[in-house]
């Protein structure tokens, strides 16, 4: 079918919201064009590629049902992304995958073992030959290794890392989207970064991918 021409009026958020409330087709098409990308990326970060599509579709349905109740305390985009995050978290809970903050009080298992009792490096970081991202990513092997590692991170760690580093959200925005306190977001982010640090380090030393 031919897409109707999208009127420019919807570049104004107020008009767009009003159009969505009227259930105007062009408004929905405009919103889908604007937000489908970030919504999909967020859902994928939390539930993985396979069911991200269903989560996003559910989220659109919720947006349609509840847009009239949107209070405008945030931008439309962050309101929609919060809905996506909630759908995704509900979905994870149904599948009985953990969504809790995985034992955040204890030490980071990835780095803890690297220090001796006095807090000095027992196993110091090895010196990498590469000194730029381009050099590290010049091999497809490491690229796919990092992708795989990110997809295997605990749900909230993966979501935090994807939102912050790959989609450029601020810490504060990540807190709101995932409904996690800022200090916990920092811990999640730090764990995820350390995990990837270790994967790159191992790859630099051995040329092999280790996701354990």
């Amino acid at each position: 079918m031919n897409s109707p021409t999208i009127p420019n009026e919807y570049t104004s958020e107020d008009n767009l919201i009003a159009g969505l409330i009227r259930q105007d087709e062009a408004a929905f098409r405009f919103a889908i064009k604007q937000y489908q990308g970030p919504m999909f990326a967020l859902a994928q970060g939390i539930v993985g590629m396979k069911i991200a599509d269903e989560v996003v579709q559910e989220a659109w349905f919720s947006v349609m049902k509840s847009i009239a109740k949107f209070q405008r305390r945030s931008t439309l985009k962050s309101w929609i992304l919060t809905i996506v995050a909630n759908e995704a978290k509900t979905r994870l809970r149904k599948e009985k995958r953990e969504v809790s903050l995985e034992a955040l009080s204890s030490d980071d298992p990835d780095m803890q073992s690297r220090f001796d009792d006095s807090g000095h490096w027992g196993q110091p970081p090895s010196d990498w030959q590469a000194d730029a991202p381009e050099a590290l990513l010049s091999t497809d092997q490491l690229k796919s290794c990092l992708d795989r590692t990110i997809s295997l991170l605990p749900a909230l760690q993966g979501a935090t890392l994807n939102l912050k580093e790959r989609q450029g959200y601020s810490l504060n925005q990540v807190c709101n989207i995932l409904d996690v306190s800022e200090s916990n977001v920092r811990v999640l982010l730090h764990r995820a970064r350390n995990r990837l640090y270790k994967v790159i380090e191992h790859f630099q030393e051995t040329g092999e991918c280790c996701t354990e």
Partner: protein
Amino acid sequence: MLTCKDISETATDHLEGKTSFASRLSFYLHLLYCKYCRRYYRQMKLTIRTIQKLPEAKDSEEFPDDAEIDRVFEKLREQS
């Protein structure tokens, strides 16, 4: 006195600008005399820049195309 373990645990807080002046001072003082922590901190920053450069699974410039918009919209109409 900060230990190397403290440095590794607070690296993200420093990178995100979430630390006080006093703790920044002791953090960077430690880096001045500790080669391994300097290396860790440098390579952590490299790790972050590398993650940021990883290509997304779907190209956000191209996505969604018209067919995708149609598909999402039609499903939405069916559901309602």
